[in-house]
């Protein structure tokens, strides 16, 4: 007859009574565990990076739910094409170990992934029509365009240029 295995609880082992906490004590316990978890996650560069990347993906999907005219000047909402390309850009960024500063909807219709460091700015914009175009500049310098054919290879090349520009 199979017998269920149980860890023996000896004199030197005990179940912390606080795990049964209710009311105020329970809330305190929840808060402490949450704080500990945040400390653990923040303490791990890998986990922190993962959390940030997941947040970026969630941001892209959230932008897909914007209404038409979200900017009050008639901007189209991002569509499935721009979302798919924005996710592709995020995947490529991950392989370059390079994180965006912000992800914004584009007033032209689409999603832009932005990078800023001091007076250096760059973005790569995924349009609702399927185009993926980048731009970069520093200060008042004339902006430089990065054209892609929306394939992984050409987007990667553009992102590398942006990374080099942003990191100086």
């Amino acid at each position, binding site marked *: 007859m199979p017998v269920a295995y149980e860890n023996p609880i000896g004199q030197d082992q005990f179940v912390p009574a606080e795990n049964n906490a209710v009311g105020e004590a329970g809330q305190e316990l929840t808060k402490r565990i949450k704080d500990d978890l945040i400390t653990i996650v923040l303490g791990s560069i890998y986990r922190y990076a993962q959390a940030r990347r997941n947040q970026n993906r969630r941001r892209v999907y959230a932008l897909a739910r914007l209404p038409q005219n979200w*900017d*009050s*000047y*008639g*901007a189209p909402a991002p569509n499935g094409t721009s979302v798919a390309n924005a996710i592709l850009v995020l995947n490529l960024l991950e392989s370059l170990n390079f994180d965006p*500063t*912000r992800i*914004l*909807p*584009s*007033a*032209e219709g689409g999603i*832009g992934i*932005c990078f*800023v460091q*001091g*007076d250096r*700015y760059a*973005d790569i*914009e995924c*349009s609702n*029509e399927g*185009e993926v*175009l980048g*731009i970069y*500049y520093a200060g*008042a310098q*004339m*902006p430089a*365009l990065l*054209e892609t054919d929306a394939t992984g290879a050409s987007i990667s090349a553009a992102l590398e240029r942006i990374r080099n520009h942003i990191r100086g």
Partner: protein
Amino acid sequence: MPEERLFRRYRREDYLGNQFSGLGFAFPKQSVNRGKYSNPEDVLFSNTDEFEGWGVLYFRAQDLPLRFPPDVAQYTFYPRHVPDDEMYPHSEVWCDRLPQTGAYVEPASKSVRKLFRAFMSQRVRVEIEAAV
């Protein structure tokens, strides 16, 4: 030519540090209000307070490039006063090819549009800071 400011509302997220993202600008015929006929806060006017907390930015009419792109000029940009029933100062940023036709011409290339949006984003200034 005397300086004239062209106003437009914006949200805080379009500013990254002290840089306005060109993603906040659009073609065609970007809407602005003429400073000659309005106050900056007029672009925030709404019967339903829908723009509460939005900010106002401006660029100068003179900032619009007469020859663009600078290295191989193909287009010219200028403000065109297009008053509407509820907003007399309403204007639009128009584009024409070179040599000028007198009509609105949409640049065929998305690249020129992207370049222009970035170019203008470098020239905007905040008039009323956004809270949202």
